[in-house]
């Protein structure tokens, strides 16, 4: 179906629905004409406002959100903590990979002195940051894959917990790392103000600090192998760390 047909059909359905509603309302209003006296109408309007007031009271007393909106000072603190990540990464320094950011670890056994790795990004948009690290404490024929997730903030909300983990597995003596398919997260934000004014007012743009930070390198997959074990990276996407 072309766009014009869809538009025409939706318009037709809307007109039909509106006509139906109009007839129903007309029928109902004829019957309820005498019911809505001034007194009843006033009671109805007052009751509606009272329900709204009750909703406001209930919300102000009991509404609590499990998702926290980060304040500017908190955002600054997080930014300070994760600022050196890119710098360390560019210097091949692994010291930014601390345990508090480690989200998951996989252990695999393999045969031989080389570990072939295949990376499947899934779609063009997703990019996995894969690093290789030699670890003397790992016995030969063993590989440890760790997933590190750093804070990823959008509009003051930390969404790092919502980022889907990659699929990591060993098949035919080869390590496979696959990004999961596109994933959508929906949030409902309550802003008791006039959005069109907030959006167009300059103070939001002039703000010296952005409320949205998303680091491209917010997650890392680190493959640790014992000394002397090489990684076969035919795609050339794995970077080495010291």
């Amino acid at each position, binding site marked *: 179906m072309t766009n014009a047909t869809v538009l025409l059909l939706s318009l037709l359905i809307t007109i039909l629905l509106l006509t139906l509603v109009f007839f129903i309302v007309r029928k109902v209003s004829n019957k309820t004409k005498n019911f809505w006296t001034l007194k009843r109408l006033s009671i109805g309007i007052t009751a509606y406002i009272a329900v709204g*007031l009750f*909703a406001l009271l209930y919300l102000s007393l009991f509404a609590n959100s499990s998702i926290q909106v980060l304040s500017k000072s908190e955002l600054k603190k997080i930014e300070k903590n994760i600022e050196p990540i890119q710098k360390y990464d560019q210097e091949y320094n692994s010291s930014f990979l601390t345990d508090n950011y480690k989200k998951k670890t996989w252990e695999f056994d393999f045969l031989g002195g080389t570990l072939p790795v295949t990376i499947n990004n899934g779609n063009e*948009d997703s*990019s996995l940051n894969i690093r290789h690290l030699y670890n003397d404490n790992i016995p030969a024929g063993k590989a440890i894959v760790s997933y590190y997730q750093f804070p990823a903030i959008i509009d003051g909300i930390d969404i790092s917990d919502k*980022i889907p983990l990659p699929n990591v597995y060993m098949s035919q003596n080869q390590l496979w790392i696959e990004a999961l398919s596109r*994933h959508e997260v929906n*949030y409902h*934000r*309550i802003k008791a103000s006039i*959005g069109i004014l907030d959006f167009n007012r300059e103070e939001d743009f002039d703000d010296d600090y952005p409320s949205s930070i998303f680091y491209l390198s917010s997650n890392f997959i680190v493959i640790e192998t014992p000394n002397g074990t090489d990684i076969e990276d035919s795609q050339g996407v794995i970077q080495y760390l010291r």
Partner: protein
Amino acid sequence: MQSLTNMSFKTIIKKQVKWKAKLYSSALSSLIILQVIFGALLFSSGSGSSGHGRGNLNVQFSIYSLDTFLFITVFWAFITAILFTTKAYRMDDLSIISSRTSSAIANILVLILYSFFAVLIMLASYYIQILGLMLMEKDTFIIDKLLISPSIFILCICSICLFSAIGLLFGYCFQGPSIIKIASIVLLAIGIISPIIFPESVNLQPFIQLPDLMLSGFYIIVSILCFTLCIWIADKSEVSRK
């Protein structure tokens, strides 16, 4: 004064306001119906949304601001004000009316009173929607700002007042002398055509940049101007009913 009873102008208006406020109360119930319909239709999407995509994650924010309810209310105020000037409503005028001027002043006062109630109904609709959302979407519920600020409250009342004033003036224009009719038609045509032909000439950005209270003040000035014009046109109109 054509009335046989000896009543002061103030008493006549007082009685008229009381009479009209009771008589047209069904307008407020129609506002409630409109708010409920639109509140239900936009329950899951809110009044705006923003999306962010990175890698294999899409983050969608549905923003629940006062915009939708305010737009519906100002539209309702505009239509209601026009309806106040129609023949059907004029027929319902209390028998003590002695001039069109007193009727116009009473209409203005009723519209101002209704604007206040309309804001309460608008806020009630908003908080009822938010309460429903909190109960149904608890996991994705984020509170940025729950309580409406006094300046936004005043701005809402002034916006509704402004649109009711424009509606009333629009309605009265077609009742006045032929010169006013022609002038209003020409002004209306210019108002509709000019943004289409010269879209760059209509720049609302400087108005939007103003603080809430200043914007409210501007709305009040324009409303007063419109209301004064309404009284002037009513004064120039014929006293007898057609």
